[in-house]
Every structure is written in structure tokens, then in C-alpha cells.
């Protein structure tokens, strides 16, 4: 094993975010009517320490070793995901879902957290093995399948938020592997159809855009036809899918468009979150002093809505600091991906970044009602052992990738 130089900026930023996060989890527990949340910051610290030890261990291994465990790790994570469908338990805002593995009533962890990392590794493995970036939709069947299997299981749990993360990882890594953007757009087109089909006018306009794209990119005839059929099909099944959604999911989407549609239940979260953030003002109400949080107006203040606590107690200043740290982390990882030794490492780095970026965008956006409520956690902030652990293991991988790639200007083709 080669000694590597530690990527101090990367670790520093991740540590700063984690400390900020633990502080917010502590604050989230400070309510006027004490609850079990009062003590969770302690276990968050424990998980952080475990995560950091794990990260150090991984950083002492090698990228080859990581690539070597990729396939078994992927298979294991998919198996565990499959297991949740049988014995899964719910928690938090998604109490009726099955995303947790538990022994008795003790929840062990969410296999989907593990799967987020293994899918990144597996995708990187497959995409890196190609000489050329996928040029057609048919070329994409393998990477698509890698994501599709865990994605389908997750949608069956159902966990819409994690599903969105997987889609983000998929598109992010395809982009990084050099897939042309019109192809990405064509790939994404059925999803767009799914969403736009609720308005006939918008859907029609989308078809014109799609036609222009097809003419511009000139895919194979079969592809073009399949694409169009897929678009029509998703557009047609959209209302049927809507009916299939659980009522709480329908409500969340409805509330996303208009929070006042359901101010007592689903809309309540968003309304109270916005009030918490908006009332924070420039400098916030002070650490642990947020009234929305203290008096339990803010739901899930230690998990999904922890960023609302940041906004309420630290104000716009705290929000700016937190978001700047995230941006710094992501820019640093993008740099690492750009300087990586080989395409696998590069793709892994970018994939992990994409995964976090989707988390941050969706979670933070959700607190301001810019995104629908999907129950997606905020990396390094939201209380949750397996996510903290997985995040730091990912930092460990990035440390290793960064270390092996340091100073390398050129990238070998694999």
C-alpha cells in the first residue's frame, strides 16, 4: 500500500459540516417539552467518530481494492434492499414505508444509504470499462439496469426521495462519463413527459422540443420511435400512476404546488418550516433559541427539517455559511474527480458528489417549498447513524481517490 498525502481541505470541510450538523442536532433536541430527541446528538457524535475511523481506514486502502469489492458490495446492498420489502419498517415522516431494517423494534439501518454508495461504485465500474462514452440509448442498457434494480426496490418501499437521488446519480455520472447532453435529455424525456402530461398544452410543447432534439441528435430510427412511444406511454400512464400513489404521496405533491391546500397535515410541515426560516431573519434567533423548534411547531426538526432550524436560529448568515461549506465541498470533489488517476476513481468521486448535491438541493429546497417533501436527509446534518456513517465512508473513498490522483495532470485511458 502506497502512502498518500491526506486531502486536508476535503477533510476540513467535511469535518466543519459534521460539527455544524451535530451542533444543530443538539439544538434540535432543545425543546420546551423535552422529547427523546434531546439525547440523539450523543449517538450522532458516536456515529461521526465511527465514520471518521472508517474513512481513515478506507483512505489507507487502495482504489483497486475498492473496485475489487464493488461487485460483491453492490450485490449485497441490493439483497439487503430486497430484504426491506419483506421485513422493512418505517420511521419519521415516512412511518408507513419499509426503508428500515430492524431486529425487533431496534432499527439497524437503512440499506438504501449503503446502496447509494454501491450504486455509485458499480456505475463507475461499468462506465469506466468502456472505451467510448455511450453514444446511443441502446448503449446505456447496462448502466441503466444497475440503477434500475435498486431504484425499483426503493420505489416499492416506497421512498420517493431516495429514488430521486438514484436518478441524480445516474444522470450525473453519465454526464461525467462524456455522454452528450442531447442524449441525456432524450433519456430523461419520458420522465419529463410523465410530469408535463398533467397539462395537455405543456405536454404538446414538450413534444415539439423533443422532435427538435431527435432531428438534431439523429438517433437510430428504432431508438427515435421507442423514445416517442415511451414519451406517449408515460404521458398516458401518468394519471394511472397518480392513482397508484399512496395518499400521503399525492398530498405531498399537491402541497408542493399549494401548501395551503392542506395546512393541517402535509402542508403544515412546509408552512411551519418557511415560518421558522423566514422568522430567523439575518442573524437568527440564536443557537437553541428558535421558537418554532422549541414549541414543536417545526416537525422532524432533527432529521428532514434540520435546515429550517439552521435558518431559524442562525439566520441568513448561518444558511450562507452552511451552503458555502457544501458548495466548497462539492467544488473540491469536482476538482478531485478532475484530477483523479483513472476513470473509475474519477467517476466514483463525481458520483458521490452528485448524490450529495441532489440531497442538499432537494432537502434544502424542501424547507422553502422549492421542492416537494420527499423525506430526504441533509448530509452531515440530519440525524441518522447509517447516513452519517455512509457519508464519512464516502469521504474516506474520496480521500483515497484524491491521494492517488494528487499532482497527476494527465489521465490514462482505461
Amino acid at each position, binding site marked *: 500500500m502506497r502512502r498518500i498525502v491526506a486531502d486536508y481541505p476535503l477533510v476540513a470541510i467535511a469535518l466543519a459540516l459534521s460539527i455544524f450538523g451535530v451542533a444543530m442536532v443538539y439544538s434540535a433536541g432543545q425543546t*420546551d*417539552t423535552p422529547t427523546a430527541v434531546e439525547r440523539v446528538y450523543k449517538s450522532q457524535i458516536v456515529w461521526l467518530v465511527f465514520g471518521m475511523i472508517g474513512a481513515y481506514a478506507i483512505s489507507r486502502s487502495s482504489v483497486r481494492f475498492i473496485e475489487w469489492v464493488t461487485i460483491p458490495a453492490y450485490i449485497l446492498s441490493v439483497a439487503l434492499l430486497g430484504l426491506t420489502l419483506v421485513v422493512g419498517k418505517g420511521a419519521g415522516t415516512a412511518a408507513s414505508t419499509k426503508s428500515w431494517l430492524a431486529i425487533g423494534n431496534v432499527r439497524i439501518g437503512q440499506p438504501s444509504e449503503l446502496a447509494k454508495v454501491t450504486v455509485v461504485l458499480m456505475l463507475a465500474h461499468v*462506465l*469506466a470499462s*468502456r*472505451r*467510448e*462514452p455511450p453514444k446511443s440509448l441502446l448503449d446505456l442498457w447496462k448502466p441503466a439496469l444497475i440503477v434500475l434494480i435498486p431504484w425499483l426496490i426503493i420505489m416499492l418501499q416506497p421512498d420517493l426521495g431516495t429514488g430521486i437521488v438514484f436518478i441524480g446519480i445516474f444522470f450525473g455520472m453519465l*454526464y*461525467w*462519463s*462524456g455522454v452528450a447532453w442531447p442524449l441525456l435529455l432524450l433519456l430523461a424525456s419520458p420522465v419529463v413527459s410523465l410530469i408535463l402530461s398533467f397539462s395537455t398544452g405543456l405536454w404538446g410543447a414538450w413534444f415539439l422540443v423533443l422532435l427538435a432534439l431527435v432531428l438534431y441528435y439523429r438517433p437510430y430510427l428504432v431508438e427515435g420511435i421507442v423514445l416517442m412511444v415511451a414519451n406517449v406511454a408515460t404521458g398516458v400512464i401518468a394519471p394511472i400512476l397518480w392513482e397508484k400513489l399512496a395518499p400521503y404521496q399525492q398530498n405531498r405533491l399537491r402541497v408542493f404546488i399549494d401548501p395551503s391546500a392542506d395546512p393541517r397535515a402535509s402542508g403544515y410541515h412546509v408552512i*411551519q418550516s*418557511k*415560518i*421558522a*426560516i*423566514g*422568522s*430567523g*431573519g*439575518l442573524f437568527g434567533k440564536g443557537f437553541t433559541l428558535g*421558537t*418554532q423548534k422549541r*414549541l*414543536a*411547531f417545526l416537525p422532524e426538526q432533527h432529521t428532514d427539517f434540520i435546515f429550517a432550524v439552521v*435558518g431559524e436560529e442562525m*439566520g*441568513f448568515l448561518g*444558511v*450562507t455559511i452552511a*451552503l*458555502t461549506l*457544501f*458548495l466548497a465541498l*462539492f*467544488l473540491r470533489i*469536482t*476538482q478531485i*474527480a*478532475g484530477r483523479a488517476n483513472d*476513470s473509475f476513481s*474519477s*467517476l466514483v468521486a*463525481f458520483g458521490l458528489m452528485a448524490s450529495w*448535491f441532489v440531497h442538499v*438541493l432537494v432537502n*434544502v*429546497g424542501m424547507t*422553502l417549498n*422549492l421542492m416537494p417533501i420527499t423525506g430526504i436527509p441533509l448530509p452531515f446534518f440530519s440525524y441518522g447513524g447509517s447516513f452519517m456513517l455512509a457519508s464519512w465512508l464516502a469521504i474516506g473513498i474520496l480521500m483515497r481517490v484524491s491521494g492517488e490522483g494528487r499532482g497527476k*495532470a*494527465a*489521465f*490514462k*485511458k*482505461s
Partner: protein
Amino acid sequence: MSFHPNDIARRTQLSSLMLAAGFVLLLAAFFRTQVLEHQSFATQSEENRLRPIPLPAPRGIIYDRKGQIIAENLPAYSVSLIAPREDSLRAALKVLQPTLQLTESDISAAVRRYRRAPTRPTVVLPDASIDVISVLEEHRIDFPRLIIQSVPKRYYPDGPMVAAFVGYTGEISEDELNKPQYAGYKPGQVIGKGGLEKQYESVLHGDEGERYDEVDARGRPVRGVGPRSEREPHGAPPLKTNIDLDLQKFVAAIFGDSLQGGAIALDPKTGGVLALYSAPSFDPNRFTGGIPPEYWKQLNTDPRRPLFNKVIQGTYPPGSTWKLATSTLGLEQGLVTIDSHMPISCSGGLQYGRRYFRCWEKRGHGSLSLSGAITHSCDTYFYQLGLKIGLARLVGGGIDLQFRERSGIDLPNEIRPRFPARDVKAYYDRMFGPRNWSNAETLNLAIGQGANSQTVVNMAKFYTALATDGSAAKPEVVARNPERKKIMTLSPAQIAGLRTAMAGVTSAGGTAASANIQGLVIAGKTGSAQNTEDPEKDHAWFVGFAPAEDPKIVVAVFLEFGIHGYLAARVASKIIGFYTKAAPVELIDTGG
């Protein structure tokens, strides 16, 4: 996969740019929410956690003219609930029902109050007993959303004795909340429901204060001390009345349980109401904090109608008391002098057309002057005087003497007296049908019968003109600048003549000689009004003033089933005697 360094560099650049753009957009969204829209969200956050608890203000204390208390406030306890939702209110009420001994109607009343103002604590018991409060205090922990408040409770030390003018208070009703005059009032608040309490509601109603309790998302108070400084309630200023509470109590005592009717005493120079009593009365203290249903039922089924104010709400034929109006009109128009005799002397009645109009004195009065006719209440004289004046002038003059309008006393629900309109023919045609009346109505009207029903207060007001220089004073319960209006154009000598004649009424040989008081000249006039319910028992009137030479008090007494005016005169003379500190002398009853 394409890993040419140039491609990588381009993608790195593009991704970094996209990332930065994404974060700038997020930050912009936070800037808008936290900085630009901060005020609105800060307010919403305050509204979330701060529950305003109204602090009721004490109503203004009502004093009599000497500073004695008519209405004051006592400390009482109210029990209210804070509820985030109607179903949680119902659940809480269910739990509290046995402790508070709530009836189903109490519960539905509380739910109605909640629907009206969900953010206000819902009053469950406006006036809880100390036993209930002590039980609740013991179990305070179990009912975190319960608010026990010390609230001022209206109390009338003399209860039934002052009810007729002071009225009573009660919780504002649904109907009242919808009225524009009660804009700004909230459910559960106490308002004046009758009498002065209602008339001067805007004055007596204090300025409600507010305390802020911090509550959590479930509506449970979390801290004892409000995080925002409370607004003190401001009690209303005291209300000073013209009432002479001692006189008022004396009047109430005279009526006692046996007499039924009403009395009013006025200061003739100011119109100030010295006493106003309606018998039987009711206890306004029992109305505070909700009328017990059985008491309400009892009041409403009592045939003597305790809730009916006989001074301002009842109209009765004024009878002979109205002969002073006829006299005034005759004198004003120069048809008679105080010494004029009528062509036909009284032999027990007057033949008019085909009808014989009786005088109450079957033996006849012989030939009397106007003065004598007043003293002896001779109907025959006034039949002829009425005919001299004529129906149109009698009605027109009566209207000028304000017999067709309310007295304007500052109490609610005064009824308008019944009196013909200026267009006499049209009025009688409408009342009786075009062919069903004749000029004989003039005779009825002249002796205070016919289409003429007056309130007790309006008769008293007319006599204030006789007691002064011809100016009627508007009766006012609350002390303020008097409003007087000259209604008759009699010379001082003519007025003096009328007073002398009225003084004769209470002198030996007058119709109310038994009401005489040694050393005091009472000028007045008896009257009896036909009782539609029981023809055997006429209603009795006496309206008069004393001392006749310089009147200090005008009294109108009306007794239902009083049989004859002299009974009313006796009551009036006692009132006058008490007020002028002179004792009435029991003279031999001369009858009639």
C-alpha cells in the same frame, strides 16, 4: 468513457459553474424568505406561539347623585379553555363535564363561542363557584389548556330596587354580535342588556386588556410569564346619575310586594330622574353570568310581568291627569280663564247629541270655575271645554304638548305614547273606520280617554312644564346638561292659577285630600284609567309636584288595579314627603 484531459477540464468547469449557480439560486431563495419577507414570517411565528388572553375590564361604577353606589364590580372567577380544534375542545369539555357540572347546553354554548373566535380562550363557565375553582386548581396539571381568570362581576347592592332603570348585564348573544353597534365585540364578553347598562354600554364598557401566553404546537401553555408585555385592562369611568338612591329605595319599599305599577320622580328644573321604579321588580344580580333557566321562566310566566317596565314601556289612558292638558289648551287659546264657568253646570253628566256623557260624580258638581273643575275633576266641565276647543285644536295642541312623542328618557326601549295624529279625520278614519266615529271623541279626549294612552314618564314630563314656567324638561337618568323646551305659552299668572287648582286636589275637599302633607302644598291631579282586563278595577294615576309655590319634585305614580287615583296620590305624597323631609298627614278620606 471519454477521459481526454480537455474533456475533463471542460466538464469540471461546467459542473463547477452549475454547482455555483445552483447554490446562488438557493441562497437567493433564502435571502428572499429571511431578509425580504422576514417581517411577515416573524409575525406568523409570533402568532404561532403567542396566545392572547383577554383581560376583561371592569365596567364603570354607577353612582347616584350623592355618590352612593348603584352598580359595582365584585371579583369572580371565569373558566375558559384554549383549544386548537373544535374536536379537541369537545374532548376537553367531555373530560371536564363532571367536575364543572356542565349541562349539554353549556357545552353547545361553549362550542358556539369557539366557532366565533377560535383563537380566543373559549369561556366555559363565566362565573364559576369557588368550590369548582378549588377543585380545578388542584388538578391544574391535568388540564394544561384551562385558564382560570379572576374577572370582574357586575353587582347591584340594591338589586331589585334599582333594576327598573339600571337594567342588567349578560354575555353578548349571537344576534348582538352580528349588529353593527357591537362591531369589535367578541364572544364571551359581557354587555349591558337593559336599562342604563345597555343605554350607556359604550361608556360603561371598559377597555379590555390582553395578556400573552406562550403556547406550544398543541396549544399548551409553556411558560407562566408572558413573553410580551401585557396590556392592562382599563376600567370604564364611573357614571354619575341623577338618581337619589335613598328616594329610590323608599319608593321601592312603598310598592313592596302588594302594589303593582310604576313611579317616577323628576327634578322639574333639570329633568333629572330622582327615582324610577316598576313593580314588581326582578333581581338583576341573578342575570349576571347567565340567567338560571328556572328564574327566567318564573319571570316570564308571572302575570304581573316583572320584566315589563311600567314607567317607560306601558301606555295607559291618562284619565283625569290629562285634564291639565285640556285646561292648558283652553287657557292658551283664550277660551277660558282660570275663573271661567261653563254654560251648563254639572248635574252628573252632559247630554251630547243622542249620548249622555257621565261625570264621575253622579250627584253633580254644580257650576264650577276651571280651578274648581280641576280640584274636583269635574268631567262635565271638561266635556264643554273640550267642545269649545274643538277636536282638531285639542289634538293639535296635545301634539304640541308632546303627547305624541317619546319623553326621550335615556333608557332603552321606551315606547311611544298613543295619541291622534294632526290630521284628525284621517287618523280616526283609519282607527275606527270612516263612519264609526263622531265628534263625541272630543269629549272623550278632553277627559283623558279615547285614543290617548300615555307612558308614566311622559305624563311626568308634561307636569315638569306645569311645575316650571311652561318648559318641559327631558327626563335624564344620567347627570348632564338639562334639555328643556317651552311647550306652553301660559303667563306666570295662568300657571299659578293652575297650580292653585292642583293644590286644591290634595286639600280638604279635593279628590286626593288624603294625600295632604302638613306644611307642604302638593299640586297634582288624580286620574283613573279604564282597565281592559278587569272593568271593576281601574288603574290609578297621580301626577303632581311640590312644593306648589316652588316645585322641587315632580312625581308620577301609576298603580295597576289601583281603583282610584287617590291611592296613587297617597303613594305620591309619601314619596314627596320623603324627598322634601315632610311627613304626610293622614286626613279623613273624603272619597272621589
